[in-house]
């Protein structure tokens, strides 16, 4: 009985240790998913956001991208935007906030993540759900490439995917 109790206690301690390890040292996939959730949160904004907060949010969002990033966004009616620097991303984000002029909630759902064998880069296919307050929900498939730079996962490439060919 005493041995059984000790074995049970050992199993609980090992399980708690493994759980704690995953919390303290999350794997790259978990880190990337958290990173993407943070990007979606930063891309969201509310109607009564003050300009300083908007500027801070745009700069923080740009900070999630690598300096040599490439972004290609295609919107309906064959409108396309391309960016190649963090500054352009921040400017576009500020312009988008002004253009929407209200609340926008962005979510990344159905994230399909593929890690490179060396675990230094990753590709993410995801669906962005964009819901303006009182407006129509928009969904857009996006392909992202991320790279680990100085211990941080940064977006190096982002492009919208055409739903229909």
């Amino acid at each position, binding site marked *: 009985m005493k041995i059984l109790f000790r074995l049970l206690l050992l199993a609980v301690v090992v399980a708690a240790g493994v759980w704690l390890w995953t919390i303290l040292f999350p794997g790259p996939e978990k880190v990337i998913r958290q990173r993407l959730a943070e990007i979606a949160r930063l891309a969201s904004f509310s109607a009564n956001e003050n300009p300083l907060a908007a500027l801070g949010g745009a700069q923080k969002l740009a900070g999630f991208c690598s300096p040599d990033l490439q972004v290609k966004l295609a919107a309906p*009616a064959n409108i396309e935007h391309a960016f190649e620097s963090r500054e352009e991303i921040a400017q576009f984000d500020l312009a988008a906030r002004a253009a929407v002029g209200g609340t926008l909630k962005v979510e990344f759902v*159905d994230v399909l993540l593929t890690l490179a064998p060396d675990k230094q880069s990753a590709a993410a*296919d995801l*669906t*962005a759900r964009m819901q303006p307050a009182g407006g129509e929900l928009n*969904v857009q498939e996006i392909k992202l490439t991320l790279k680990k730079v100085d211990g941080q996962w940064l977006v190096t490439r982002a492009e919208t995917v055409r*739903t229909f*060919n």
Partner: protein
Amino acid sequence: MRALLIGRNPKLTMIRIVALVAGCGVVFTLVLWPIRVTGISMLPTYPNRSLNLVNRLAYIFHEPQRGDVVSIRLTGPHGMFMKRIIGLPGETVAFQNGRVLINGEILDEPYEKYSCDWNSPPVTLAADEYYFVGDNRSMAIEDHEHGVKKRIYIVGKVLL
């Protein structure tokens, strides 16, 4: 009153409730997915913000048919498009002065209520591809999401 609420046999009532909840859970998770239509591309057949169901088992025994309204997924089930199939694998689809041409012949579309002047060059579909378009063609062709997608992206048939 008590008998009216929980029946004469409370144990049996509880089993019925659990079975009903479990049954609904299975049906609405695996078979019928509730969806909310967002946008005007399926007008007038499906109004904006209307509710519907997608039957995920509709294409187990047969392939999608022309005229079916289906749900098409993106990277997963949390973002989907609702469109009508107008072109089947192997066919050539084109728009000419607002009419759909399948292999060069005009397609009869009783569901299309708004006239349009769309034109697009012929597209030949591969063995696993379908051509999808919404019923509302009153908007400019550039503003209307439509075109070719592979069979694997069809989630199911819209039920109602």
